[in-house]
């Protein structure tokens, strides 16, 4: 168990170093950083001074070491468009993204599990057919179309919900939250649905498939033979066993929820990290792109590591069979 955890941790560090190399090469080699900072008519001498002050004259390994040391302290340089430290920009916007991603995940889990269980137990009802249609739409409609559709319905036509921004936010330390004000909560509804819909369909399909599988197993048949109530069999025995993979998938998906927030944040002009990243891609602001890549990878790698370790804790069968060298 310890060896497994250690191996996984080393692997995670390896991934982070690889991502660091990519982020550094983006920062260093994709376009000349000096050109982005100075204006077109800056004299050559001044350019040299800027080059020197950025340390771009040093050998590449030295630059890489410095970039890495700085990144480890969350110093990612200065944004080309905003002329502000990237870490400040990211920190300012992180709460918005995390709050949105958390709400979307909770929404997806609750409705996904409910719909999945229902459609596994009542296979041929109209409601099940409806759920399956919804899940097909959730997979086929691109995220931004769902967002536009919701905005058209609830903002333009009905005027119930705001179409952009976070509403009023409350500041708690460095964290800002929209969960404590009415306008903040209203602003959160449509973006969470937009972001959570794909995850919801994924969880629903997974729960349904797992549930159908479990219901066919011997121990369920045995539980029936023992005369347990249907409810005890379905929810006490079957559902419990389907939840392990569901929690794993939902955990692993949290990373991609944060990445997909890029789209949702653009549609709803939600002031989060994703919107910052899209603007960085549009304006070729490499420091922000590199920093975002590093931050998101850190979140991904951490989640993967935690889920992997938790998985072995939750499911004892895996402990003896951990031979996967992956």
């Amino acid at each position, binding site marked *: 168990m310890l060896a497994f955890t250690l191996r996984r941790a080393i692997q995670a560090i390896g*991934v982070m170093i690889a991502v660091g190399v990519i982020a550094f090469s*983006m920062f260093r080699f994709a*376009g000349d950083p000096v050109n982005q900072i100075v204006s077109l008519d800056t004299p050559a001498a001044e350019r040299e001074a800027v080059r020197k002050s950025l340390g771009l004259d040093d050998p590449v390994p030295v630059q890489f070491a410095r970039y890495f040391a700085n990144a480890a302290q969350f110093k990612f340089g200065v944004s080309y468009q905003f002329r502000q430290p990237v870490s400040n920009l990211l920190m300012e916007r992180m709460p918005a993204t995390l709050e949105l991603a958390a709400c979307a995940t909770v929404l997806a889990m609750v409705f996904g599990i409910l719909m999945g269980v229902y459609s596994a137990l009542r296979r041929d009802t109209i409601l099940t057919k409806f759920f399956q249609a919804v899940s*097909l739409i959730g997979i*086929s409609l*691109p995220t931004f*179309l769902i967002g*536009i559709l919701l905005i058209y319905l609830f903002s333009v036509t009905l005027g119930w919900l705001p179409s952009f921004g976070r509403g009023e936010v409350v500041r708690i330390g460095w964290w800002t939250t929209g969960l404590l004000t009415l306008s903040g909560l209203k602003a959160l509804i449509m973006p969470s649905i937009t972001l959570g819909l794909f995850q919801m369909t994924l969880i629903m399909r997974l729960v349904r498939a797992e549930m159908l599988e479990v219901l066919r197993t011997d121990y369920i048949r045995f539980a029936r033979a023992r005369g347990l109530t249907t409810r005890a069999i379905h929810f006490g025995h079957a559902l419990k066993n389907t939840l392990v993979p569901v929690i794993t998938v939902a955990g692993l998906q949290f990373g991609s929820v944060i990445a997909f927030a890029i789209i949702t944040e653009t549609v709803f002009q939600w002031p989060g990290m994703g919107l910052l990243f899209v603007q960085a891609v549009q304006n070729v602001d490499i420091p922000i792109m590199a920093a975002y890549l590093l931050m998101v990878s850190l979140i991904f790698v951490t989640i993967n590591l935690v889920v992997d370790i938790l998985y072995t804790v939750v499911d004892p069968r895996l402990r003896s069979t951990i031979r996967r060298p992956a």
Partner: protein
Amino acid sequence: MSDAVVPHRVESSPQRARPNASWLNRVLDSDIFYSFRRSRMTMVAAAVTVLFFLLAIFASQLAVQNPFDPAQLQLMNSRISPLWTAEGQSPFLLGTDEQGRDVFSAILYGLRISLVVGVLGVIFAGTLGITLGLIAGYVGGAVDGLIMRIADVQLTFPAILIALLVNGVAKSVFNNRLDAVSTLAVLVVAIGLSFWVQYARTVRGSVMVEKNKDYVAAAQLIGLPAPKIMLRHVLPNTMGPILVIATINLALAIITEATLSFLGAGMPDTMPSLGTLIRIGNNYLFAGEWWIVAFPGIALAGLILAINLLGDWLRDALNPKLR
């Protein structure tokens, strides 16, 4: 037993003289065609997909104007609502936008771009993934380890993020001065680089199974070079799953392209795809001009839904467990 020589073409041999007819018969007699005919949903999906492809191919014949030739646009015709509404005007079936562009013509041209990027992206991803998968599976050892580690790491990152990054880096390298055609090429590469993993993994898995079979040993014995064995003998036996992945991937590639264009990191306004049209139209939503965004949106959703349905059917039809 698998090494017994099965003369599987015996039944078609009398018709050898007419290869076309026998080929058609074989298709019509196949299990796949049978399952195709049995599913009405699949037939509709196939028809819709073919229709979209035809619309894209014959876009310039069907459109009432070339919507991206400024000389053909007239500002007098701007913001006309669809034909069936009170203010509709004759040649503009689905209305016009701010610059007097016919929405229907714009969709036809946009569809063409979306499909070109999608298909080329899938081909690029497939070629890259299949090649790497073949090498990893056939050569094995350290090469296999390296390729599959890269695949593992990449799989933890969503495709859209990778595509956005590739796009941003390309823009930076070319100093943000890309014309429309090179943007298209960048998009194809970005999509290809984000979707190759699935092909590589699938091909590698099948190759690992296939390469221990006797026919590969026989080919090695008669001294065929490894690339020839891989391409001519092993690859055809891995094509079933690849076809399924490619179909589902086409839908994903089209979604990715549309998303990138919607985010402003894809096709420019001068050569718009469906995603670009939706981004442009989105600005007029609040002014009540819903048709500028609605119809490109419907076209995109319909296309993706149809391809997804085809992919689902193909997956089930080629899965021997479900027969």
